[in-house]
């Protein structure tokens, strides 16, 4: 099936993301990339756990002093919800409903932006209230590297999805761009997976002590 072909509601297949060989390759290759990302984030988690609360002097803030439940909870809710909205987007993609897909992707991007904004506020808060910065201690370096890497992934994901939405806004769905949307949504879910561990290991376990 040629990728460029104009599709209709009737000819749109059940798995539009895997119709061409290129699409299948992209699908598989991206999953493998996520396998590698798993190791990358695991390494960052290991670093964080090894350096957690390692500060040069006893009057510096530790994990239990820093983290607060409400902020972490709101961030988590934003990101979890954005995961659901991107599922909705893929649902509409499979139903060949381009407008609704774009709408849900748009909501996803907004939620992601909200998350990112809160994260920036949070980092700013720690630096100014607790003097907990990237350079203040090994704990600080490890914390900002782990959470910041995740934040950078969120930012890149937002850029990616936005680019896809704009690029394809006039063209509608085709077998050429369906795998692109699908892969971007996989990436977005993966970001959420990482966040689940971050809020558990960094924030909740940090508060427990």
């Amino acid at each position: 099936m040629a990728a460029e072909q104009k599709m209709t509601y009737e000819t749109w297949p059940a798995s539009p993301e895997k119709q061409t060989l290129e699409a299948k390759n992209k699908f598989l290759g991206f999953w493998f990339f996520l396998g590698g990302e798993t190791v990358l984030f695991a390494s960052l988690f290991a670093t964080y756990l090894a350096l957690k609360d390692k500060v040069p002097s006893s009057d510096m803030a530790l994990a239990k002093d820093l983290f607060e439940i409400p902020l972490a909870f709101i961030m988590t809710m934003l990101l979890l919800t954005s995961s659901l909205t991107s599922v909705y987007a893929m649902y509409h993609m499979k139903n060949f409903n381009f407008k609704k897909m774009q709408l849900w992707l748009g909501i996803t991007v907004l939620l992601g932006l909200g998350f990112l904004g809160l994260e920036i506020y949070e980092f700013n808060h720690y630096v100014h209230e607790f003097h907990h910065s990237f350079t203040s201690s090994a704990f600080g370096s490890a914390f900002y590297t782990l959470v910041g890497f995740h934040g950078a992934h969120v930012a890149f994901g937002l850029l990616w999805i936005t680019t896809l939405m704009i690029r394809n806004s006039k063209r509608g769905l085709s077998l050429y761009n369906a795998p692109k949307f699908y892969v971007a949504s996989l990436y977005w879910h993966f970001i959420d997976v990482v966040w689940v561990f971050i809020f558990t290991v960094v924030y909740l376990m940090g508060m427990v002590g």
Partner: protein
Amino acid sequence: MATQQPNSGNPRVDIEYRRKKSAEEMKHQVITFALMIFLTIVAFVAAGYEGFSGWFIVPFILILALVQVIFQLYYFMHMSHKGHEAPAMFLYSGAFVGFITIIAFLTVIWW
């Protein structure tokens, strides 16, 4: 093509069937989402509640996280669908390598 659904010969019927299926799946995903939210709230409450000891809370919230991630992978990322054998294998291999790294960092190699 291998990934295509069984064909009844009538495209209209096929599409209706598929729509119904994917609507059903969407329903499952909304339920999954609700469960995930619920688990998250439980985890936050457990961590915020003063009455439990860390020895209980830490493993508890880790298990909750694990369940959530499995929901994500299998429902949101469709790992339960056909054609995900290789992705699953490689994701688990990555998780395994990462797990060994973390376990080693937390146990035997430190002084």
